[in-house]
Structures are given as structure tokens and as C-alpha cells.
């Protein structure tokens, strides 16, 4: 390739000055060569089936959902699509006049703002504990923390719902042994959302832990020894050496968990149907209910508001957590 363009190979500096231009020319030429064309064809051929399916079942619905959010399509129009008319941003205006949608957005915001930091902190703490302390039982704990992640969320929600059942549930039974009259957790506006936050943290800290653990184990031992020689204590070593190296892992988990939390749906869907008094109604559950009621236009508009929020949060996370260099 272009090894001869490297300096210090016996060539004079004078010859070198013209080199970069010439190598760029060559690259452009090779791109057009017949061999590259065959490769490109093969690549398209291999990627084709996926791209076709992606376009048909993901891209198209996404685009049409956007278009639908600008029309007045309802379920009754499925057979008479010519009845649908373009209404501009009317649906978005209606959406922002709906108190229930604001309740849903507020619940989602509370959920993300409380559950996300808690999950990251708990996951990191679990990873550090596993990396340092409990070496002997590491495998056991790793499985224990990760098991909730791979269990179906619906199964988890159903089990929690049973545990929290006001009369017959295990939680209130145990509280009863200590003379505490447990509340109706999921039917109480004070407890329903916090319970779901707790559940989400418990369920998702495993993902954060696994990725952080991988990050921790890749911190070079020599770096730690160097820091130790420089007189850094364990606390300083963690904050000054380990933590900055974990930044990419933190960004990854914060973004993926954050997106998952913004789509907060399964728990209220299975456990409370958004109640009591809409206290666990999430933005996605709101959109889902609109679909169920045949209001496809409102459901689409709500989905796009959620989409914009997810993009905004993700951009924000990249700004805050990206490597500074």
C-alpha cells in the first residue's frame, strides 16, 4: 500500500511533500476498480435481505406513523382510507392540552430521574464489591445479580404483584410479623410508582454491573501500582484512576438503560394498568391505550413526542459523559 510514503525510509523530505496527494489519487482509483465493484455488489447482496426486512417492517411503519400523526386516522378509517384528512399539528396541540398526557410525562420523568442514577450507582457498587471483596463467591453473585435481567419482565412483574398483594402477599405477611400493617402497595398513590422504581433498579442493576465489572477488570494493574507508589490511597485510586477509565462503560449503560426507562411500560401494564389515579401511567402506556381505543393519530403523535425526548436525553448524556479528550 503506501508504506513507501512513510518518512525516514531513505527518501528525502523533498520527495515526501508531494506524497499525500498522490496516495489519495490512488485510493480513489482503487475504489473504482472492478474488484471493488464486485465486493460492493456482494456486500449489498448479503445485507439485502436484512435491509429489505428492515425497510418493510421498521422504517416504513416508523415513517407512516409520523405521517399518521399529521392526519385524523382512526380505526374506523381502516377500510375507508380516503376519508382520512391531513390536519397538520392538530394532534400535537390536542396532546399538549391533555392533562393525562402531562401526568404520563411527569410519571415517566420521575421514573427516569430517580431510577437511572440509582441503577447506575447500585450497578457500579455491585461491580466494585465483586471485583474487590467477594472474590470467592464471585460467580454466585454474578449470576444472582444478573438473573433478574434475563428473566422475562412480565414474569417479574407478575411475581412482584403477587408478593405485594395487600391481603395475601408475602411482603405484608412478613411486615405483619413485626406488627406493621402493610399498605396496599400497588393501590396506593404514594407507593405504586416508588415500588416500580425499586423493582426497575433491582432488575436492571445486573446489566450495569456486568459491563462495569468488565471495565474494572481491564484497568491495567501497572497503573494502579504506579498510583500506589505515588502515594494515592484506595479512595483516591478509585476516583482518580479507575473511575475515569470506566467513563465509556458508564456512558454505554447510562444511554441504554436511560432509553429503556423512557420506554417504561411493562410494569404498569401488568401490575396496575396505570392506576391508581394515573399515578403509574407512563408515556408509552398512554400511547398504547390510545392505540387500543382506535385513536391511531393520537397514539402516533404521542409516540413521536417520546421519540424526541429519547433523542434529547441521549444527546445530553453524550455531552455530559463523553471522554473529554
Amino acid at each position, binding site marked *: 500500500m503506501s508504506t513507501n510514503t512513510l518518512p525516514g525510509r531513505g527518501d528525502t523530505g523533498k520527495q515526501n511533500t508531494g506524497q499525500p496527494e498522490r496516495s489519495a489519487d490512488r485510493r480513489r482509483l482503487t475504489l473504482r476498480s472492478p474488484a471493488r465493484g464486485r465486493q460492493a455488489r456482494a456486500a449489498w447482496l448479503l445485507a439485502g435481505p436484512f435491509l429489505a426486512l428492515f425497510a418493510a*417492517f421498521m422504517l*416504513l*411503519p416508523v415513517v*407512516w*406513523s409520523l*405521517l*399518521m400523526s399529521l*392526519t*385524523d*386516522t*382512526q*380505526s*374506523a*378509517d*381502516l*377500510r*375507508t*382510507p*380516503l*376519508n*382520512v*384528512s*391531513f390536519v397538520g399539528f392538530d394532534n400535537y396541540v390536542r396532546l399538549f392540552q391533555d392533562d393525562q398526557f402531562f401526568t404520563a410525562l411527569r410519571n415517566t420523568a420521575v421514573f427516569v430521574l430517580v431510577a437511572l442514577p440509582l441503577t447506575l450507582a447500585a450497578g457500579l457498587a455491585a461491580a466494585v464489591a465483586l471485583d474487590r471483596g467477594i472474590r470467592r463467591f464471585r460467580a454466585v453473585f454474578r449470576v444472582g445479580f444478573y438473573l433478574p435481567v434475563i428473566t422475562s419482565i412480565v414474569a417479574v412483574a407478575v411475581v412482584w404483584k403477587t408478593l405485594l*398483594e*395487600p*391481603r*395475601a402477599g408475602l411482603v405484608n405477611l412478613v411486615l405483619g410479623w413485626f406488627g406493621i400493617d402493610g399498605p*396496599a402497595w*400497588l*393501590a*396506593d398513590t404514594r407507593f405504586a410508582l416508588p415500588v416500580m422504581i425499586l423493582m426497575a433498579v433491582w432488575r436492571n442493576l445486573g446489566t450495569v454491573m456486568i459491563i462495569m465489572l468488565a471495565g474494572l477488570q481491564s484497568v491495567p494493574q501497572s497503573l494502579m501500582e504506579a498510583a500506589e507508589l505515588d502515594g494515592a490511597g484506595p479512595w483516591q485510586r478509585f476516583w482518580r484512576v479507575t473511575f475515569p477509565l470506566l467513563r465509556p462503560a458508564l456512558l454505554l449503560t447510562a444511554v441504554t438503560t436511560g432509553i429503556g426507562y423512557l420506554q417504561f411500560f411493562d410494569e404498569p401494564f401488568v401490575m*396496575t*394498568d396505570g*392506576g*391508581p*389515579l*394515573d399515578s403509574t401511567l407512563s408515556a408509552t402506556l398512554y400511547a*398504547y*391505550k390510545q*392505540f*387500543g*381505543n*382506535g*385513536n*391511531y393519530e393520537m397514539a402516533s403523535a404521542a409516540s413521536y413526542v417520546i421519540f424526541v425526548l429519547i433523542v434529547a436525553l441521549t444527546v445530553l448524556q453524550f455531552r455530559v459523559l463523553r471522554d473529554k479528550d
Partner: protein
Amino acid sequence: MRITTRHAVRTVQTLCVTVTAALVATGCGRSEDSGPAKDAPAEIAAGKAKGTVVMWSMGDPDEDLKELAKKFEQENPDATVKITAVPWGSAHDKLTTAVAGGNTPDMSMIGSTWMAEMAAMNAFQATPASIKSSDFYPGQWDTTKYKDTSYGVPFIADTQAIYYRTDITTKAGIKGALAGDRAGYLKDLEAIQATAGKENPKLRHASGLVMGFNSWIFWVPMVWQQGGDIYDAETGKFTFDSPEVAKALEDWASVPKEGLAPTDRSDNVQGFRDGLIAVYQEGGWAGGSFHKDAPELDGKWKTMPVPYSEQPAGFAGGSDLAVFKEAKNPDAAWKFAQFLTEPANLAAYSKGTGSLPPAPQAWTEGKLTEDENMKAFAEQLEVSKAPPAITTWQQIADTIDSELEKLALGKATVAEVQKTLQSKATSIGTGR
């Protein structure tokens, strides 16, 4: 419960195709004269059924329905019936997708509260004139109607009655059933509540209450009992601001307000079985499931009609049989629907499945009231009424559910609830 309409449509794909078509052709506004509601009734030809009928049934694979299909095939040797079971959870999606894509079976069981929505989608053929509305309970027949045209035949009736634990109520000094009038019924509930702890150590509340999802089913009949309604079909206006609605809201809230029922969304079926509550309102299927799952309770519970204030009224739900516009074999499908809803066959189906038949004659022919506990349901069906047949009904129902919850939890007054219901319902409208 089988009356749900909530199972939402997640498959946007099919829908999108139609929307594109719409958008490509945009420019044309909404034309008022299009759509259904001017359908002429289908006609059933003379002679025997021929060819294949494809039918979707809801729920578990239905052996009793298959038995009836076999009988139909024997009577019509040139006809074959193919029955596909569709789980309730995905039925709404499957049906709307099939209708939108024009790829339907010949006929299907349809949840009664889906009828208006799907009829508005122009999905069904109008019921043939040879199927007589007078053969069915009026409330059940009304579930097949949309804009004054009938689009199906009632097949399974659903209404609620009161279940009570005789072992608990007798300890409260109540002989036989609780009082059938509202005031007396409340006194009886208070008497039961007073025995909690002493005579009835497990009992927490006299009565159970449905909170949240589908609680409207228990409240709307209370408006009818007052002689009022929540919707005036003549004028197309909601009437949540009427004095009858105010009375019904007060009546509904009085039970939880006086501590006679829990407000914590606990499981009524379990509570009744465990003796935590003594009385609750439920559909006909519950009796069968008690007998199966809690045989130790046999003989310890009875049913009675729902107590009322001014006049008896109840809720009519269930499933109807409908034949699709795009049916390949509509004649044989209607013949099968007619066959299934003959009194003898309805009675046989009811005995097999424990469901309630929608035709009075089926009750007499099948001697169904020989079971004491079925009597209350037969009485309720006489006075049951269908909710308004408007395409936005589920949204209105959701609104009622959440307002009732506010009322029960003391977060809103009757007047506030009335005002919210009226303004929200009016802004939701009746669809198109």
C-alpha cells in the same frame, strides 16, 4: 372478563399500507355519505348449506362448539365447518388487521363491545331479516346494533348478579338472600360488616368492589336503575350532567365511603373464596369456577339479582356471531350462525360451557333454571341493557373508570365527577 376492548392494535403495518393509499390520494376531504349504516340485510337462501365455513372462536379451543359444528355437518352433508380458536388477548388485533387487510374468515365470535368499532370499519354484513330480534333478550340484541342496523346474532350473554356467602350472612342474622331494594341492601351490608371479627373472624369487608379497569360495568346500570342514562342516542349527546347520574354516583360511592368495601384493588374472587368479603357482584362464569377450584365452598354461596333503587336494570355484554363483508361463503356462514342460535343448540352449548344463553327460549327448553344459582342471571337478562353503541365507547368507559376511582378514594365530589365526565365525554365525542 370477556367484554374487554382494550387489547390494543400493535401491528401498525397493515394499517400503514392503507394510510399510504390515503395520503397518496390526499386532497380529498372526509366525505360524509361514505361508510356503513345503510346496509341492506343479508339474505339466507333456501336449502341446505354447502361448501366450507371458516369461523374464528375466542378463547380456548372450544369442544362444545366443535360438537355443534359436527351436528351441523350431519344436517348439511355438503358443508364443512372449520373452527380456529383465537386467544382473547390477541383477538382484537387479529380481527382489525384481518378486516383492514380484507383477509377475514367467513364468520367470527365478536366481543359485544367491539361490535360498534368493527361495524364502523365496514366489516360486517347486516343481519338477515329471517333472524328475529324478538327471539333474544332485548339488551343482548342491542349489542349487535350500530346506527340502528344489526350486524350479528347474540351467542353468549353476559350479565352480573350478586354472589353471597350464606355461611357468613346467616351469622349476621340474614335469612336467605339480602334485601333486593337498595336501602335494605345497604342495611344488610352494615349488619354483615358489624359481625366482622366476632362471629366472622376472617371477614374484613361486607362487600367487594371493582376498582379501576371495567368498574363502569357495575356503575352504568345504576344510572339505568334511576331511570336515566348517560347518553341520548336521539340527540347524540352525553347526559352525565343529569340528576339520575348524580344519584347513581352517590349510590356507588356510598359502599366504599362507609367502609363496607375495600378500595385497594384486591382480588374479589380470592377474597370471596377466603371469606375476606361476604358479597360481591360477578358474571355467570364465576359459579362454575367456584365449583371447580373451590369445591369446599359448594353449598356455602348463592346468587341473587342486583339490588336496585327505582327500577331493576343490569349490564348486557358477551359475544355475538358476525359474518364478514368479505366472507367467501356468506350463505353457509349465516346458516351456521342461525343453527348455533337455535334454542336447543344454545341450551346445549350453555350446559357444556356454563355460559348464559341470550335467548329466553333456550332457558326454558334447556331447563337451565333448575340450577338455583342460575335464576338470578335469568332475571337479570330480562332487564339488562347494552352500553351505547358508539365507536369511542372504550374511551368513555376508561374515563368513567378513572372518575369512579377518584370518587371512591374521596379525591373528588359527586358534582366534580359529573362535571369532568360531561366535559371529557363531550370532547371525546361519539366517533364517526
